[in-house]
Every structure is written in structure tokens, then in C-alpha cells.
């Protein structure tokens, strides 16, 4: 029972992913433009993907002044 629930959920995420691909691929047809499509993350929801892989933060960095500083 659980596995069929899980299967349905993953299938939904997969369908969401294909809609995202269509949107993202519509931006540019230039030969070397980025291509989007099915990969190892396609059956993750965007939230799952974010919670698992997008965990970095950035401390506010000073604008580069062009001076040769050693930090």
C-alpha cells in the first residue's frame, strides 16, 4: 500500500519536473545553451531537492576593490 502511495507521489514529482523542463528549455535555443531534462533528481520534489542539496549560505562579502590584499 505504502509503496503504491510512494510511487504515485514520485510519479507526480516526475510530471512536475517535465513541466519545469519545458519552461526552462523555452528560454534559449542557442546551440550551446543549457539543456534541462530527466536526471537523477527528477523524482524529487523541489523542496526535497532544496532540503537535501541546497544547504549553503553566503556571508556578506565586501565588494572587490581591485587592491592586492592578502585577506
Amino acid at each position, binding site marked *: 500500500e505504502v509503496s503504491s502511495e510512494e510511487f504515485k507521489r514520485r510519479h507526480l514529482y516526475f510530471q512536475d519536473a517535465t513541466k519545469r523542463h519545458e519552461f526552462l528549455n523555452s528560454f534559449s535555443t542557442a546551440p*550551446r545553451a543549457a539543456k534541462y531534462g530527466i536526471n537523477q533528481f527528477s523524482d524529487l520534489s523541489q523542496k526535497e531537492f532544496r532540503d537535501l542539496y541546497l544547504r549553503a549560505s553566503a556571508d556578506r*562579502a565586501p565588494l572587490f576593490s581591485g587592491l592586492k590584499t592578502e*585577506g
Partner: protein
Amino acid sequence: LPAKFDWRDKAVVAPVQNQQACGSCWAFSAVGAMQSVHAIGGSQLEQLSVQQVLDCSFKNGGCNGGSPSSALNWLKQTRVKLVPQSEYTYKARTGICHFFSQSHDGVAVKNFTANDFGGQEEAMMGQLVERGPLAVVVDAVSWQDYLGGIIQHHCSSQWSNHAVLLVGYDTTGDIPYWIVQNSWGTTWGNEGYVYIKIGDNVCGIADSVAAVFL
């Protein structure tokens, strides 16, 4: 500046790794810069322990996340020497910090810089050539679906959420692009790498750029 430049051509970039289901990209990014700069300095290219940074950099959150510059700051302040990956292997989960004596061999951070290169990506090219691979943070929400090619659109710089290693650039074609090593394994993207258009701070790649001094 050369029209194209790639630190991989100088055999100072370690192979692509896979962080697996652990939010440790920040540690891979910081350690990736260290091991490359160490090799540029004439040492044998050797993979250093990401797990040591994950477990011991107490100001970061292990698998729950962190920042490359915070990890570099911890390494600079504590003078901790990173040991080879073979001595302290990656486990994809946060563990207890293993301490090593000061006499134990390893690589220490003397200093680092972290700057915002927004609007100055040509200067950022110079920083890459001069300092070696750079630890950068990006907005990688759209990378979930990325297969390859040069990212030019729909990769806002709304918020930084992922850390990667900048290893080169290529301005010889129609679209100049950065060459970026990710830590999601070699089956993702261009054998583990992603190409990002230079200019317009695509994906926020210029927001926070860290260079390491050993």
C-alpha cells in the same frame, strides 16, 4: 588575461566528488580550493579530508549546511591542518571531530579573501588565474533539472544556496562561460561540471568569491 583558462589543464583539480544526501557542498567547495592551491604550490595533488571540515568546523552545521568562507575562517583561526581524505574518509553524515596532533602532517590555511565581484567578472577572471580555483556560492535551484550546456537564463541571484568550485573560463565562443566543478557526482551535468554565462552575475556566481592562501 588568456581568452580561455582551465586549471584542470594543469592537473591541479581533483576529480568530481559526490556529497550524496548530505548538505556538505560548502565543505567540498572550501576543501576543493585548498587542495588545488596546494597542488599549484608544487605539492602532489592530493584529496584532503572533507569529513574533517564537516565534523570539526563547529561554526557550520555539518550536513545541515554551512558556508565556504566560514569554513575557511575556522581553518585560518584554528590553524587546523587538513589531513588526506584517505586518513579521514567521507561518510556523508556529520560525526564526532577527530583531532590530530600539531606534528601530524596536513595542509593549513594561512589566509583567505572573500569578495563580491558583482559587475566585475573580468576582475574575477583575473583572480582565478592569479589565485587558483575559487570557492563560490550560487543559486542552484534550477540545477535540479540541468543536463548540460551554458546556463544563461532563469538562474536568479535571489539567494545563495549552494557552494561549488570555479576552475576555469572560456571566452572564445559566442557565449563566454565559467567552468564550475559541482559535488553531485560525474553523472550530473557535463560529467559533474556546469557552465555558466560570464556577465550579469548569472546564478549569483559573483556574489561571494573566496580565494585561499596556504
